[in-house]
């Protein structure tokens, strides 16, 4: 078995994207070395520059999401933090929440905690063996006290894209708000929060947006007020002992991760220059190549839709007779291929796909993955199946 150190054998972009565009590294380093004023605090030139950087990042994200007002983009630590803010900032005792079986633990656990505390009720919308939500079930599940529908825009296990517009239309018809978890889609699928009528959209900075870890955000529709989860310093109205009510500071407190945002801005700029559709086209072709050849390898079972147009660049598979963790270990130790195995923090999704509790091997090529890298990976999986038959 050979190793190919010149290849990009990182197939875990659904966990965090790598590599980043060159400008992302440079911007974060430059910020730490040369800038480093604390945004919103003091009034000297460096802090003003930091304020401008934070604003430009908000404005770039608002433009990418087609949000009319940059002030409705709130910075968070990551998508999990944004989802917690959305759920705990919106929901009131007695509310009912609908969510799909494809949700990540970042939705399942906060909702589970609220439910166990006796504050809310929830209903899971079942999903098919390829990850499609049962829309008939959803339609019948709206209750008079249903406040929110949570939709994982694309599954981090099977890559399945949810029928967002149809689900939003149905929720709004019932007077229910929609929270979209776009952890796997922002930067890789076109998103239009205004056109789609999305009420809340949570995203992370370190996946499709190519930013550093510790960045992310929540889009909050105009007119929608959330309770803050954190209160404290904002650099404004310091004489008041109450947190400001104006957005975005209402939902942000404490020093922002400005070096991270410097990197994130360059990631978003890279996406704007490259074009979301170009990124989408490249990744769809990689996923299609991977899917078509992977399913032909004897002993391999591939999960999720056959059509790559219905998926983001994520694919899950199992190999008969070999534990998925073992496959991941062999892929790294013998082929230098990096991927993620197990349950991917989405137990209900694995139940829907029929892969609970053993889990799957998840491959997620990214924008910097090349077709040759996919072919090398396919060859590695083939070699492992041959080993298994000895």
């Amino acid at each position, binding site marked *: 078995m050979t190793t190919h150190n010149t290849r990009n054998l990182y197939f875990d972009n659904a966990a965090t994207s790598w590599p980043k565009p060159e400008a992302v590294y440079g911007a974060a380093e430059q910020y730490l070395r040369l800038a480093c004023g604390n945004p*919103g605090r*003091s009034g*000297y030139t460096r802090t003003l520059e930091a*304020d401008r950087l*934070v604003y430009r990042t908000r404005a770039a994200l608002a433009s990418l999401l087609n949000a009319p007002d940059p002030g409705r983009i709130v910075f968070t630590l990551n998508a999990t933090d944004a989802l917690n803010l959305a759920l705990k900032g919106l929901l009131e005792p007695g509310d009912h929440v609908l969510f799909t079986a494809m949700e990540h633990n970042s939705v399942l656990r906060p909702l589970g905690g609220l439910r166990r505390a006796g504050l809310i009720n929830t209903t899971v919308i079942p999903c098919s063996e390829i990850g499609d939500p049962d829309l008939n079930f959803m339609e019948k599940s709206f209750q008079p006290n249903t406040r929110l529908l949570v939709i994982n825009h694309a599954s981090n296990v099977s890559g399945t894209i949810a029928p967002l517009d149809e689900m939003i239309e149905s929720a709004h018809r019932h007077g229910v708000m929609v929270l979209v978890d776009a952890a796997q889609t922002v930067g890789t699928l076109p998103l239009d929060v205004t056109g789609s009528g999305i009420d809340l959209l949570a995203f992370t900075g370190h996946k499709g947006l190519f930013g550093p870890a510790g960045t992310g955000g929540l889009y909050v529709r105009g007119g929608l007020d959330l309770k803050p989860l954190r209160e404290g310093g904002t650099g404004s*109205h310091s004489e008041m002992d109450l947190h400001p009510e*104006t957005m975005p*500071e209402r939902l942000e407190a404490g020093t922002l991760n400005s070096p991270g945002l410097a990197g994130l801005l360059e990631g978003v700029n890279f996406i704007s220059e490259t074009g979301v559709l170009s990124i989408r086209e490249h990744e769809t072709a990689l996923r299609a190549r991977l899917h078509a050849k992977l399913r032909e390898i004897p002993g391999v079972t591939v999960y999720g839709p056959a059509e790559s147009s219905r998926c983001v660049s994520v694919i899950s598979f199992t190999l008969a007779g070999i534990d998925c963790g073992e496959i991941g270990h062999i892929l790294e130790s013998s082929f230098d291929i990096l991927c993620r195995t197990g349950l991917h923090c989405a137990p209900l999704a694995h139940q829907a796909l029929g892969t609970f509790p053993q889990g799957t091997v998840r491959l997620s090529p990214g924008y910097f993955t090349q077709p040759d890298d996919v072919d090398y990976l396919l060859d590695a999986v083939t070699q492992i199946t041959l080993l298994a038959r000895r």
Partner: protein
Amino acid sequence: MGIYCYLTFPTTYFAIRAEDLLKSRPYHFKMVPVPRSISSSCGTALRCLCPDVSGIKRYLTENNVQIDGVHQLEEKVLKPPKLFTQKGKP
């Protein structure tokens, strides 16, 4: 001595959004630390010429920028000692 007007904002976000929006408008302005005589709060104010205030306010309000207040101040023009001036500049 010079007379300037200062616009203050509820948050830094609105201050920087105001700066960004006004870049494309024909006004002379500068972002400066909020003078202590206006507010004990930390933050950034927009300093401009007083005759421009009504036009600036109207434009910012049209663009949903919240303004806390407008203050007119007589500002001393301080001449920094030569020790601290940059080389080549008076």
